């Protein structure tokens, strides 16, 4: 029997997942609830760079419905550091990245204290009763200034605002010519400096995470793009065997790379649910999301193109400063260097040099 194959290319396809989504039968993480669920709210630093000199949580602890209040000092022994899984150079400088700030805050929006209460309203009420004393530190906002000698430092213990410099040079690699020579010999040289702005992925669904510590496994639901990686890193960073952790990404309302992350919020919900022995959920407000979920791009790009007058390109030099914000996160050092494979587009450049310096500033990572 001969079967005729109908062409699939060009055929319209209706989606399979719409039935639930258009009738509101959704499983966004914030929809989920468990018996005895507690709600977490986060107090965030309004300061871009400051030393925390005192935190008084006594007022918050007395508020109705409040079960517990934690500061960085309370979690210092178990919170470890958030992971950075992409060391782009052997000498990359990686600051310690606690989920809850202990001595210093390094960006406005960094978590400073958490409240756990019987309802989200009660948790939010209690935030207002936490008193934090901050001592201002110099704020680093401009990348060009940050890399100059004598600049104020985001992380004084690192001695520099430069996290790493990654270089590809076709001359050094032996795959092409020397770009400085190409520029020197060129009939036409074009130099441009571009500012790639910082952007916010702005997924419509605010991030949300819930942990149930009561089963044979700790189960974590998170609006995440990377449930498998999150599970591995919860285990690796927090010292819980992988088989004891289950991570579920239920319905996720947009990510755009903004939920491709291992976040302070996920670590905090996990640690606190485990400590209290009760299910805990955290859902961010939009304002929190804009301020504390990781941002995109933010580069100063200097490009130099050398060419012959007939339009034949002979060399391309790319020099980038890429803003890491206050901390490195899961893959943030690697994203700007992906540009190495893209700046030359579809053209064959006989000489190509790409240099990217990742820079710390007192901004959202």
């Amino acid at each position, binding site marked *: 029997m001969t079967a005729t194959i109908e062409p699939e290319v060009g055929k319209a396809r*209706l*989606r399979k*997942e*719409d*039935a*639930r*989504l*258009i*009738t*509101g*039968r*959704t499983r*966004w993480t*914030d*929809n989920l609830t468990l018996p005895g669920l507690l709600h977490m709210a986060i107090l965030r630093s309004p300061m871009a760079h400051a030393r925390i000199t005192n935190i008084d949580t006594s007022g918050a602890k007395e508020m109705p419905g409040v079960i517990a209040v934690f500061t960085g000092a309370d979690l210092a022994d178990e919170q470890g550091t958030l992971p950075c899984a992409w060391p782009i150079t052997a000498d990359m400088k990686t600051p310690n990245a606690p989920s809850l700030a202990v001595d210093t805050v390094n960006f406005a929006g960094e978590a400073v204290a958490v409240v756990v209460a019987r309802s*989200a*309203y009660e948790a939010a009420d209690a935030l207002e009763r936490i008193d934090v004393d901050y001592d201002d530190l110099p704020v680093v906002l401009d990348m060009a200034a940050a890399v100059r000698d004598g600049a104020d430092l985001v992380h004084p213990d690192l001695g520099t605002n430069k996290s790493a410099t990654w270089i590809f040079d076709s001359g050094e690699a032996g795959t092409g010519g020397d770009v400085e020579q190409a520029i020197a010999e060129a009939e036409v040289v074009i130099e441009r400096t571009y500012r790639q702005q910082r952007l916010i992925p*702005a*997924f*419509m*669904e*605010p991030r949300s995470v819930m942990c149930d510590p009561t089963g044979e496994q700790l189960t974590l639901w998170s609006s995440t793009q990377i449930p498998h990686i999150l599970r591995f890193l919860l285990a690796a960073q927090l010292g819980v065997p992988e088989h004891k952790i289950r991570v579920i990404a239920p*319905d*996720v*309302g*947009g990510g*755009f790379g903004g939920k491709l992350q291992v976040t302070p919020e996920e670590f905090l919900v996990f640690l606190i649910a485990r400590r209290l022995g009760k299910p805990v959920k955290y859902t961010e*407000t*939009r*304002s929190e999301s804009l301020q504390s979920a990781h941002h995109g791009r933010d580069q100063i790009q200097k490009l130099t193109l050398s060419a012959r007058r007939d339009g034949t390109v002979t060399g391309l030099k790319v020099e980038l400063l890429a803003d890491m914000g206050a901390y490195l996160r899961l893959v943030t050092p690697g994203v700007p260097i992906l540009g190495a494979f893209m700046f030359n587009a579809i053209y064959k450049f006989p000489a190509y040099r790409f240099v990217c310096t990742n820079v710390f500033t007192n901004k959202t990572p």
Partner: protein
Amino acid sequence: MRITVTVDGTKFTDDVEPRQLLVHYLRERLGKVGTVVGCDTSNCGACTVHLDGHSVKSCSVLAVQADGAEVTTIEGLARDGQLHPVQQAFHDNHALQCGFCTPGMIMQSIDLLADNPDPDEDAVRHGIEGNLCRCTGYQNIVRAVRDAASRMQGGAGPEAEQVADVRATTGGAQ
């Protein structure tokens, strides 16, 4: 404060804090999680429901304001397993991706079509300007609303949605 609200055809009586937002009452007390919260500035429209037949952003309505009223959410649109024409049109025209903005878009679109049964593209874009979407770029949403308009006659949808006389409503731009 004690309130009585009819939501998607069922009457509920509850004690609520005066400051509780309607969207939180729907989600947390009634379990109507089809209606979602997308922002904290009333910009995004993801929380849109109908209050006595007109669209409102439920994040900007207090639960106590809905006392004695009829609320329709995304979950109350389908009748006897039949989708509302706007729901069907969203599916047929690929007007959703992640689906988070979708309930609010659908509820607002229904309100738009009640005011303007045959909107052109411009009228649709203006009519849903209070609803944000990050996935689709709006093109297919506009197509879906116009597609639904062409399939709908006045009076489609549940009882609580009935406007007294569609022709008597002040129409939008044609």
